[in-house]
């Protein structure tokens, strides 16, 4: 979008006519109301939309989880049938991983990565919009299955041959495959986009080792995605060809090796685990130093351990398959590799602890969630190490012990990191402070709920409750007070406390939007570049591209070293710095124009996918839309040559958003 300033007089020039594309379709002219969002290519708007979509799916996945817990709360649960239960846990996991966790990390990455490196947008703004809309289409396709004959029911890793046409005859798995395929394309495009952005669009002076840790972790995650998504794509293509076109890849009667699916899935699936957790590690690596009033302890160690987690993450996948009869050599090799990956993770934990050590801790809600992550993730990490020991893993495989483990790392780790990010960056994105009192309720209810829900699952697992059991009988519940039935009830009560905790967050959001307190420009005395602009940031992010001299550039503009007292002395506050930037604003700023094509192309891909289920005519329609949109995209002039944004001045001129040609 271009923003141009025009004098507030009668001589305002006529609206610029956008150049035609494809002879008929013009670039979007209307940039107000819903169109402003649908056709935007602004990384900040796209980031917010990612957040909204992810939060919506978080609620969907959460309701699915509550239904599961209701079913298991008491003996002979009758909330769900066996079939519905299978669909429920499959879709709960799929939704939480692919439609909540990844998009929510994408929301943070989209919004803050360009701001943290001092850029005005991402490298490919239209592709960025395309990623968002593909994700939405993928999510719709996945969830449409609920209304079109039942959802996928094979568990989130969809092992063959159970996922084949014989054992999963409904279209559920087909929708699952297509939805993930589309969401996968979205992630692949997004990851290429963000890597190019980080490599190419850093502000002058920002070397790689001066980048904020959040940006670093996002960079590592995008590399993991670029190199792991094609593997799941292969797996999904094989499964799709088997289900829809009669291929034999996982057909044991033809001599197939179903383990092929497991390998392909986990070669993707294990890097995916780090894709989920590293963004949260990045977030708390920003939050902990800020609220400890100290620089991050051992920045290079945090960065390199993040990178090595990423690299080693490609060499441990088979520890998900210890129970499948891989053979002793493979098991030993993967077991050792898995233990090794605990080292860089441990390094990070110690870096965070030493960051807080001796700091003046400020217990805001963001800080509480960050500390919560450190503790809860460590618990989950320790039970993870027990899985790396193959004999113990063999006993734990497919029990609730596994469920307990990954919920501690994913909920206690990832989700707490994301919530820490909400409270930390909310004032930046919306210019208002989230309520700290409600935040405190939000935090403590989530801590209590989460430990009540997932803590007992360790015990349940060791007592032998299978991971995907849909019902248990009174006889199975056992005797004595602390029996199987008791812990199931505790877990179910905990899940509702957890849900109430999340509800407090939503209430907080609504309350803040209605009557929240306006945020100061630098409410947390923060350290990184995203705070060197207004809240919310202007469409062009920075009035002047900052020149970077330090790691934690914003902090070093506010403070200088007082060598006599060996402390940092404040020389400016954030407010002054932002005003100074505004005064020295750049004269001409080009921003990319909005575009129709991303959303059209994404829709086309969705129709094309449905064609695989519903037949060739629909496929042809989808293909036509894709082709039309591709040519529209290519022929669309990406940037106008002559429309600039002139920065705000104080002489009463009005700013106006105008389309680009």
């Amino acid at each position: 979008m271009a923003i141009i300033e025009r004098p507030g007089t009668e001589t305002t020039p006529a609206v610029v006519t956008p150049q035609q594309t494809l002879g008929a379709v013009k670039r979007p002219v209307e940039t107000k109301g819903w169109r402003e969002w649908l056709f935007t290519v602004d990384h900040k708007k796209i980031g917010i939309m990612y957040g909204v979509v992810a939060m919506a799916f978080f609620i969907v996945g959460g309701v699915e989880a509550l239904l599961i817990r209701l079913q298991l709360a008491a003996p002979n649960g009758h909330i769900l049938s066996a079939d519905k239960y299978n669909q429920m846990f499959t879709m709960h996991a799929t939704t939480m991983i692919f439609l909540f966790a990844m998009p929510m990390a994408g929301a943070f990455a989209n919004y803050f990565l360009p701001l943290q490196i001092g850029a005005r947008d991402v490298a490919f703004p239209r592709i960025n919009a395309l990623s968002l809309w593909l994700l939405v289409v993928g999510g719709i396709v996945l969830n449409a299955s609920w209304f079109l004959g039942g959802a996928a029911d094979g568990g989130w890793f969809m092992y063959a041959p159970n996922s084949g046409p014989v054992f999963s005859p409904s279209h559920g798995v087909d929708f699952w495959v297509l939805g993930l395929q589309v969401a996968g394309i979205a992630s692949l495009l997004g990851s290429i986009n963000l890597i190019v952005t980080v490599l190419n669009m850093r502000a002058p002076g920002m070397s790689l080792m001066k980048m904020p840790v959040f940006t670093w972790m996002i960079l590592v995650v995008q590399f993991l995605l670029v190199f792991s998504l094609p593997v799941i794509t292969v797996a999904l293509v094989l499964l799709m060809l088997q289900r829809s076109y009669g291929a034999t890849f996982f057909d044991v009667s033809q001599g197939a090796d179903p383990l092929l699916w497991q390998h392909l899935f986990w070669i993707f699936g294990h890097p995916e685990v780090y894709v989920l957790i590293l963004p949260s590690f990045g977030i708390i690596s920003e939050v902990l130093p800020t609220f400890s009033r100290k620089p991050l302890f051992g920045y290079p160690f945090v960065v390199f351990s993040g990178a090595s987690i990423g690299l080693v993450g490609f060499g441990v996948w088979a520890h998900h398959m210890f129970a499948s009869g891989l053979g002793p050599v493979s098991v030993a090799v993967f077991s050792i590799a898995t233990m090794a990956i605990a080292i860089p993770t441990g390094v990070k934990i110690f870096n965070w602890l030493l960051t807080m050590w001796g700091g003046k801790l400020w217990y805001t809600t963001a800080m509480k969630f960050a500390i919560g992550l450190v503790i809860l993730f460590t618990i989950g990490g320790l039970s993870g190490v027990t899985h790396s020991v193959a004999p113990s893993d063999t006993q734990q495989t497919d029990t609730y012990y596994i469920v307990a483990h990954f919920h501690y790392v994913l909920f206690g780790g990832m989700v707490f990191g994301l919530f820490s990010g909400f409270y930390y960056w909310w004032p930046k994105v919306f210019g208002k402070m989230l309520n700290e009192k409600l935040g405190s309720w939000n935090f403590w209810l989530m801590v209590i709920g989460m430990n009540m829900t997932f803590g007992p699952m360790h015990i349940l697992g060791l007592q032998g409750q299978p991971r995907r059991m849909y019902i248990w009988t009174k006889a199975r519940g056992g005797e004595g007070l602390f029996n199987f039935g008791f812990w199931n009830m505790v877990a179910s009560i905990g899940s509702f406390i957890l849900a109430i905790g999340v509800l407090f967050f939503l209430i907080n959001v609504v309350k803040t939007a209605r009557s929240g307190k306006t945020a100061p420009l630098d409410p947390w005395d923060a350290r990184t570049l995203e705070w060197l602009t207004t809240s919310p940031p202007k469409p062009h992010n920075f009035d002047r591209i900052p020149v970077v001299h330090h790691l934690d550039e914003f902090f070093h503009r506010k403070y200088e070293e007082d060598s006599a007292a060996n402390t940092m002395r404040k020389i400016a506050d954030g407010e002054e710095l932002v005003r100074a930037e505004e005064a020295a604003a750049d004269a001409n700023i080009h921003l990319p124009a909005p575009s129709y094509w991303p959303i059209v192309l994404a829709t086309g891909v969705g129709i094309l996918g449905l064609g695989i289920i519903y037949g060739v005519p629909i496929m042809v329609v989808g293909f036509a839309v894709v082709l039309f949109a591709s040519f529209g995209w290519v022929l669309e002039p990406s940037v106008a040559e002559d429309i600039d944004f002139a920065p705000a001045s104080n002489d009463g001129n009005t700013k106006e958003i105008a389309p680009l040609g």
Partner: protein
Amino acid sequence: MNATAEHQEHGMSDASYIKIAIILAAITGLEVSTYYVDFGPLFMPALLTMMIVKFVMVVSYFMHLKFDSKIFSFLFYTGLGLALFVYCTALATFKFFVS
């Protein structure tokens, strides 16, 4: 971008591209000949070596990777290396390389 970088980006002359292509064609000829002539125990190593030589030549010269920024080489060979590592490991667990 300085003058030498500019020059490098343009790669080689058309004549040397044709030379490379002739070499590639010759190797392909040799590869096909293994189908007709018995190379004995050398068969497999020879065939794989020729495949790798062709691969590297196209990547280095036709795709300019030899003359271009090292970042491109890093990105491409990281992908290639990971692919070799994960898939060879997976095939090894299927006892593919035994027998």
